[in-house]
């Protein structure tokens, strides 16, 4: 509705993109000729090579490719913890290269939810504190955010473990805490790098079910994986080879 009005979009650094540009879905993340080059002495490694692509709102993507094809590099750039060496990356229309360090941090906290292969929970904080950690760095956390944290813990099946430390949890449980943490600020894009890589197939299945549910709720999800079985769970697959797009597949048919 707001897209139809002629008024200026609401203030803030995050300007919504022109709706016409991405067809019928809103573009969440847009890459324009993005390159990421590592200078290794005399030689340059092109981890990403002139890559252009758009991820639409509500889509569920799997990024696949052989080892060293640039999957993690892509995800880090999408997650704003790394910057492209060339090209432009936009999150909901906002060019990342225009942001300073603080604004970038704000972007990570508000718009992006990161899930790591090795969970990356803070060992001295309990489950609830870990889930609420990204809230710590928000300027004006919404009211009742603690309740929301508890609900998320229940949602991932850890409602009775709120006071436990990460070391007292299994790998699957830790990853579920990490997922709840990535959801706490209701991000526009959820990024998972080999989220099931450390887990057995049964536990991995639980995590994938969670992703399915999140997708059904309309969240935009992007997972990086090696395993074809995991890749098949996503709606679409983006195949990378040597830092460039090899193929784009649609699993839904």
């Amino acid at each position: 509705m707001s897209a139809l009005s002629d008024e200026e979009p609401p203030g803030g650094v995050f300007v919504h993109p022109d709706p016409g540009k991405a067809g019928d879905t809103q573009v969440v993340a847009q890459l324009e000729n993005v390159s990421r080059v590592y200078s290794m002495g005399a030689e340059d490694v092109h981890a990403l090579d002139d890559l252009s692509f758009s991820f639409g709102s509500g889509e569920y993507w799997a990024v696949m490719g052989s080892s060293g094809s640039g999957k993690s590099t892509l995800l880090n750039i999408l997650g704003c913890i790394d910057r492209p060496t060339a090209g432009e990356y936009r999150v909901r229309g906002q060019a990342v290269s225009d942001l300073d360090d603080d604004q970038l941090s704000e972007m990570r906290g508000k718009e992006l939810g990161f899930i790591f292969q090795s969970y990356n929970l803070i060992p001295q904080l309990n489950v609830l504190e870990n889930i609420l950690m990204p809230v710590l760095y928000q300027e004006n956390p919404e009211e009742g955010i603690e309740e929301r944290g508890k609900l998320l813990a229940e949602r991932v099946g850890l409602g009775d473990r709120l006071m436990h430390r990460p070391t007292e949890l299994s790998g699957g449980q830790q990853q579920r805490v990490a997922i709840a943490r990535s959801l706490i600020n209701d991000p526009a894009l959820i990024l998972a790098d080999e989220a099931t890589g450390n887990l057995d197939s049964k536990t991995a299945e639980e995590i994938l079910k969670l992703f399915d549910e999140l997708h059904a709720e309309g969240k935009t999800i992007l997972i990086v994986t090696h395993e074809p079985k995991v890749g098949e769970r996503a709606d679409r697959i983006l195949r990378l080879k040597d830092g460039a797009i090899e193929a784009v597949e649609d699993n839904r048919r």
Partner: protein
Amino acid sequence: MRAVRLGVSSLLLHKLRSFLTTLGVLFGVSSVIAMLAIAEGASVEAQEQIRQLGSSNVILRSVKPPEDKVSNQESRVLSYGLTHEDHARVAETYPGVKDVVAILEVPEEVRSGSFSCRPRVMCVDPSYREVTGRIMMEGRFLSARDGQATASVCVLGYEVARYLFPFKAAIGERIKIGAEYFQIVGVMYPRVPIGSIKRDPGTEVGGEVFVPLRTGQSLFGERQVKIRSGGMDAQEVQLHEIIIAVELDQNVPMIANASRLMLTQSHREKDYEVIVPLELLLRAEETKRIFSIVLASIAGISLLVGGIGIMNVMLATVTERTREIGIRRALGAKRHHIVTQFLVETVVLSGCGGVAGVVLGLIIPQIVEAAGDMRTIVTIEAPVLAFGISVATGVIFGLYPAWRAATMDPVEALRHE
């Protein structure tokens, strides 16, 4: 508040290391406070002793010349020291002098009934009390009339009065000094105890007895005979001490120099000394100043060591927790959040060390005072200063590690194992 809790919780994760770091600060702070307390106590004590002599006074004192010069003298009676002539010259010719008090000490025994003791028996001018600023406990001091009438009256110091009259008031009683009877007209407060006076009532009683100068001169003469084992020791001293009370403090050095000059001219040997409390006071203050500088340097070094300890620990912590920093940054932490977190940790570390150090620093002087018979004074500045410096050290030495943590590249930090 959250940041503080977080900092504390991560410190608790490394209890031993945090404890050892805190220990460094603790000893730095407590030793600074204790040293300052001892120095201040010693200096105040020294100044008090000097003030008792009267800071606007110049004191001339007879001193027995060295033995080897004495031995070849013919007469059996050794004669030395200040003379009536010296006294007259000072009293009559010096300008700007308020008062001149002459003192003759006689080595007589003091007795009352079966009690006897050997205090300093001092024959003094009546203005002695005023010039030295001593305070009466009971009765009065010697008066000008006593002096002129060569009255047989005396004033006892508190210690003597208590020893001779343990059960009744001393005033009005008669005592025997040597072979003469004297009536007690007053009791005087003792001097503020110098260090700790070891009193041993049976043999020697400290303290003083005062009689009018002219009375003393006429009754006891100027020849002092001390009976010792194996013979007699006779000496002749006309006056033991002359106290010159100067009207204006600024004239004290002038009077002191004039006295020195006068005495060098009129005495063949150096059988006198000139004591100028004001000079001593200035010297004591200078000593204290140097002492303070030395102490401050020691304190500074120990706190610096403590600070480097903190920095070392924090740098290790930053390296160890690089991954945590990466996680926090990836989840939206800004640089200042990370800086704050690490600063809170160092400030908590050094603050705890500081508080514990202040407590210990307040206890040590008490122990020193009780065990070492030393006076200590803890000024308010010392703990405040020591605590302030310890926290400042924490902040300054914690800043670099915190800054390093915050400027780390998030991807690099996350990759760290």
